[in-house]
């Protein structure tokens, strides 16, 4: 009985994800904040600096998974709240967790898909090599899920459009780039910076991706995996809490 209920909830989550893929993947805000933004930020930091390509590819992979995965929720949920299509989920016989899981899966697939572009580019053009497939896969997958859940959490902020959610989200996303060892390796950061970077989920993304593509990690890979998994759960549950608060308030 419980198993059939779980299977049904998972099917509904997948249906929501598939619907979101169809409607929101090619929307202008998704393309702008999910693809254009990380690629252009990457280029603006890399061009003119003498960064070896072996260091640059992991940065681009981490940055794309970070931005792409966390963009779909903040695009879809505010639009659906404005058009009241989100009410369809709230009045459907499924749990709120299932609805948010569906939305998270849509962000997860977007994040993984976009981050594969620099991986493939690196392998095919810049002679990058995958030295630890498990680390790379876990790094991309866990990060995509966690950042998608982070986007869902921010999307629960009351607002009428994606722009109103993107503003506070970018207020968090952009500073995270500078404390997460993306452009300056963690080992080169001052001690307070290393502490801050340990708390940032993006640090653990770049660590695992670097490890997967032949680089070194500052923290133990198991620590990276554990912290990313904890963040994914925390973001999802926090998003759920915020949505329940909205239901009480609205």
């Amino acid at each position, binding site marked *: 009985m419980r198993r059939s209920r779980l299977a*049904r909830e998972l*099917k*509904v989550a997948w*249906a*929501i994800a598939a*619907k979101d893929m*169809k*409607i929101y993947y090619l929307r202008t805000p998704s393309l702008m904040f999910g693809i254009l933004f990380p690629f252009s930020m990457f280029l603006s930091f890399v061009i003119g600096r003498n960064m070896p390509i072996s260091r640059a590819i992991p940065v681009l992979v981490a940055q794309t998974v970070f931005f792409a995965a966390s963009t779909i929720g903040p695009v879809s949920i505010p639009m659906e709240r404005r*058009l*009241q*299509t989100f*009410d*369809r*989920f*709230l*009045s*459907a*016989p*499924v*749990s709120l967790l299932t609805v948010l899981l569906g939305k998270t899966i849509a962000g997860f697939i977007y994040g993984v898909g976009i981050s594969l572009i620099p991986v493939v580019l690196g392998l095919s053009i810049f002679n990058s090599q995958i030295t630890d497939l498990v680390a790379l896969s876990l790094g991309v997958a866990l990060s995509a899920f966690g950042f998608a859940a982070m986007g869902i959490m921010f999307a629960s902020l009351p607002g009428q459009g994606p722009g109103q959610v993107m503003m506070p989200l970018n207020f968090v996303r952009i500073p995270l780039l500078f404390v997460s060892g993306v452009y300056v390796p963690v080992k080169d950061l001052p001690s307070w910076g290393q502490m801050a970077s340990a708390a940032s989920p993006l640090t653990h993304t770049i660590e695992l991706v670097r490890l997967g593509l032949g680089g070194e990690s500052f923290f133990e890979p198991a620590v990276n995996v554990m912290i990313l998994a904890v963040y994914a759960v925390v973001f999802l549950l926090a998003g759920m809490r915020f949505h*329940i608060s909205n*239901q*009480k*308030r*609205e």
Partner: protein
Amino acid sequence: MEHVIEVSELTKYYGDFCAVDHISFNVEKGEVFGFLGPNGAGKTTTVRMLTGISIPSAGWAKIMGHDIRKQSVEAKELMGIVPDTSNVYTELSAWDNLTFTGQLYGMSKSDREGRANELLEMFELHDRRHEKLEDYSRGMRRRVCIAMALMNRSSILFLDEPTSGLDVQSVITIRELIGKLNHEGLTVFLTTHNMEEASRMCDRIAIINHGKIAAIDTPEMLKRTAEGLQSVEVSFEATNRDIHDELARMPGVEETLKQGDKFRLYTDDPPSVLSEVWDYANRNELKLITVNTHGPSLEDVFVKLTGIREEPRKGGGRGMKGQGRGRGVNR
């Protein structure tokens, strides 16, 4: 009688503002229950709480015995909802909208496709089922929205202002459909601010104003509560006289209301007023075009209970919009 909806002390606060104020009522199986009230009275907020979209501040509601908060999945499986705006996915086709709704309700592929075909035929949308809804008219989107609410073969259908803003043909089609579905056993919870619609379609009506229920009864019983509101409706051939003021001063006339080229004279004694009107027309050589007598309408009951009227009336000092007639009823 079997209660399919039970509501007790249901309350909703938005900050300090009380939008729905401790309302209680029951809806019987198979009836069309109207929720009538002006804009901002609390109709939509009530529907949102009953369908699990919004969480009540206090009180409880049960759908066929299932508490909407504690057994929300079981309760939601039994209902379909048509909100005040057609919340369809305009980027998707009618077919995709319906089958996606079927997926939300956990229907199997064959079941949801069969049901989608059946509903698209019923709503005369089958030929255009693969077109995106952005190419549909507002009336067609409304029909898709209602079809989506029926996908799960619900026992209770919540309709929030289903005909608001639609053309006459769409209104007629949708009213006929609702009647047909109710005839087939569906319980309908209908919110509207359209009194004619409520009077014509509902078995019972609750009148809500400022978040409180002012009266609940059948349309005819509600009209009886306003028996003193009989009226005589007259119209004259065009003249320069100030007929409105002169009619208002006529013996037996309590109030007058101008409705286009007609005047409605409210009175407790229609025969005497008819006689006065006849004498007045002869005396002033006016040609009467129309003479009708009316019993109290649902609109009269609504005005009496809520104090909200559509046009100002003359006479008796009670003609301001939004001011009550001061004879409230709570049955």
